[in-house]
């Protein structure tokens, strides 16, 4: 078996041991246990209300004939959006040879896997008859964007899991070989998952090639997943949705919220595991700059999305836009635009705004704003159908999510966080072997660049 690291002198070895010790997954502290218990409790409450929904049907929700897609679909779009971060950090930045993003690749892949899993689940939750789910596949109509969405979500989930798993192989082998005082099942799990990884040149070559293929493959699929999700709306002739701008509008929004999710996770992980040496202030600064850029792009698409229809104020669009700008949804709309986009941009433009705690608060603002933005995309449009609301009860014209809907939605959000937490508990959240190798490379470069040391070597 080859050494897991390329360097093996004493100084390097002690550093390797230190890095390995610091980055290996650790048992939950009392805070961690409270956090997990809270998440389990919220998920259980959501599950309980979902059982009620299966028993009694969608009548327990606020969904009626007009608002057929409520917070479940808003939540689905949100999860799909967040999942896009996997392709941003693990693929786009990696292929661009951005080295500083290494500690963030696994965080972003974990977030991507958890959110895409929940996105698929939320779609089933939204179905009145989940027992008929297979009909969506058996009787699929290839012309329907819903069919494309099922295809692309499944594909994206597979690629994301692979992109999380493959770079994890060296770390899994490390845990298999070095973790001795762990339960038998955990040892067995690492041994199976390590897939006989021995760090041989042949294995490394295959791994690098496979990761490269996946990194390239995930980009069109990631763009596809969110574009198709936007087409679920844009291919329908409805006020607010009838837009050719929707694909890029959704993708830019997804990158923004994904980056914010990574920043929030970075902050918590850094604080909890004391990873100040690995997730540095520089990482926050760079992610802050990236978030500003993505937010500005999203702002640009927002201007396009609202300004042009508002300039024309076509009959059918005006009712929808008036409701957003000055009507019942105005407080939420302006809070989302200002609090979830403009203020974060303004803060992040300054150096002081890109400090960890400030960025954590800003990223939470972006995430909350992004969730409600999806609410504003889905619901107000449904309240303005083109056909007249004839002989329909007054209550059907409004949508107020019920307690059951909120609890189920909270349950899915807690479920996603639970998956992220459990993955972090059992697997290194920062790639151990990759970090060590990069440190070694960096040291080598320093030696070569340093004239005195260089002379001594020669």
């Amino acid at each position, binding site marked *: *078996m080859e050494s897991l690291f390329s360097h093996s002198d004493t100084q390097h070895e002690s550093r390797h041991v230190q890095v390995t010790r610091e980055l290996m997954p650790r048992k939950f502290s009392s805070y961690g246990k409270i956090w997990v*218990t809270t998440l389990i409790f919220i998920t*259980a409450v959501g599950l*309980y209300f979902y*059982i*009620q929904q299966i*028993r*009694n049907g969608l009548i327990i929700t606020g969904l009626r004939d007009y608002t057929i897609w409520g917070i479940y679909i808003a939540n689905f779009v949100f999860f799909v959006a967040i999942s896009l971060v996997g392709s941003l950090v693990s693929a786009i930045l990696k292929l661009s040879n951005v080295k500083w993003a290494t500690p963030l690749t696994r965080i972003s892949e974990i977030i991507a896997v958890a959110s895409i899993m929940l996105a698929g689940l939320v779609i089933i939750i939204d179905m009145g008859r989940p027992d008929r789910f297979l009909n969506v596949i058996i*009787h*699929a*109509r*290839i*012309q329907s964007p819903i069919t*494309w969405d099922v*295809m692309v979500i499944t*594909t994206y989930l*597979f*690629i994301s899991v*692979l992109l999380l798993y*493959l770079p994890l*192989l060296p770390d899994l082998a490390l845990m298999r070989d070095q973790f001795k005082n762990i339960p038998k099942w955990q040892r067995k799990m690492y041994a199976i998952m390590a*897939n*006989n*990884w*021995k760090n*041989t040149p*042949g*294995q490394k070559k*295959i*791994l690098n*090639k*496979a990761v490269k*293929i*996946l990194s390239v*493959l995930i980009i069109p*699929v990631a763009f596809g997943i969110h574009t198709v999700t936007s087409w679920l709306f844009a291919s329908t002739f409805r006020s607010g949705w009838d837009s050719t701008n929707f694909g890029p509008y959704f993708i830019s929004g997804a990158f923004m919220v994904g980056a914010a999710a990574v920043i929030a996770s970075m902050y918590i992980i850094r604080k909890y595991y004391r990873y100040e040496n690995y997730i540095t202030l520089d990482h926050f600064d760079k992610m802050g700059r990236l978030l500003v850029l993505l937010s500005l792009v999203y702002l640009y698409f927002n201007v396009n999305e609202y300004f042009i229809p508002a300039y024309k104020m076509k009959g059918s669009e005006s009712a929808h836009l008036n409701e957003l700008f000055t009507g019942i949804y105005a407080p939420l709309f302006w809070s989302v635009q200002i609090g979830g986009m403009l203020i974060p941009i303004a803060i992040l433009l300054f150096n002081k705004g890109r400090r960890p705690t400030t960025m954590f608060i800003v990223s939470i603002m972006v995430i909350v704003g992004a969730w409600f933005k999806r609410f504003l995309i889905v619901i107000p449009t449904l309240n303005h159908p083109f056909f007249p609301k004839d002989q329909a009860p007054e209550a059907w014209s409004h949508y107020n999510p019920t307690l059951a809907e909120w609890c189920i939605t909270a349950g899915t959000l807690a479920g996603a966080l639970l998956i992220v937490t459990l993955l972090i508990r059992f697997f290194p959240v920062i790639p151990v072997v990759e970090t060590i190798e990069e440190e070694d490379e960096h040291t080598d470069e320093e030696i070569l660049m340093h004239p005195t040391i260089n002379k001594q070597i020669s």
Partner: protein
Amino acid sequence: MNYIYHMAIKYSLIKGYLLAFILTGLFTSAYCQTEDASSKEVTKKDSLTTASSTSPSQEKKELRMSLNAFKINHDLKLVSRVRSKVEAKFQNTAGVEISFYRDEVKPENLIGKQISNHKGEAYWIIPLAGRPDSMTSLVFYSSVKDHPDYEDAEETVTAYPSKMTINTVEEDSLRLVKIFVGHPDEAGKMVPLADAECKVYVKREFGLLEVTESQTTDADGNISAEFPADVHGDESGNVTIVAKIADNESVGNVEVSSTIPWGIPTKVDNFYSQRELWSARSNSPISLIIIVNAALLLIWGFIAYIFLEIIRINKLGKTN
């Protein structure tokens, strides 16, 4: 000692988690049981009742049954309908097994069994063509016996022999539907049936459209009705004309039909049967099928390749 201490802590943690799960489960099941009762109330309000098993201590419900016989062309159709009381109102009852008998309710006379549908109806069709007994009255029974939820019920009907023919003729640019109705006399000889009320219909997609006013047969058992010129037929103009006699004292329910190209041919708009984006799944555009499947094959081909590479990594590890 240290080991025992750790084990004790671990055990108490597991116990705590287990207790929390059990409590959650108990709470959920208790709530579900209370919900059960209310959901049953909702089912009761349904306009259609469904046969379900009840405990032996519960009293069986009264079942109301009707049985009718319809002679349709060369077949005899027996229709039995069951209803039971729900909230002081008789409602159609689905899921009840109804047995049909000839002459008497005896196992050897059993014709067949059917389960009542959502209208509470069960059918049995008996072909009459070539039967020697088709010129005599036939007695049939329908019966429900030993049902766990409902009391026993039985009903009878007599199917009378009859002859009804339909002819379509064109006379001086008039299209006439000529119907003859006959019944056997005491000697068993077929004689015309006078004063039998008959209606003429055209079969439509979801029912029958009355096309002439109701007429009664003359002394020769004949009716002649003019067929309107503005009735739409299928693509070739074919229409199915149906003549019906209902609840007649001598012949009961009789119906005959004939298909003739007297309708206005309907131009079928095959807008939705073309291979377009708005068509049904069976008419998807070929280009779209190719593009989607090619994209899927390409991407999943790569995924399959990655899986093969994972297997290769495993094998390389074994050889080392």
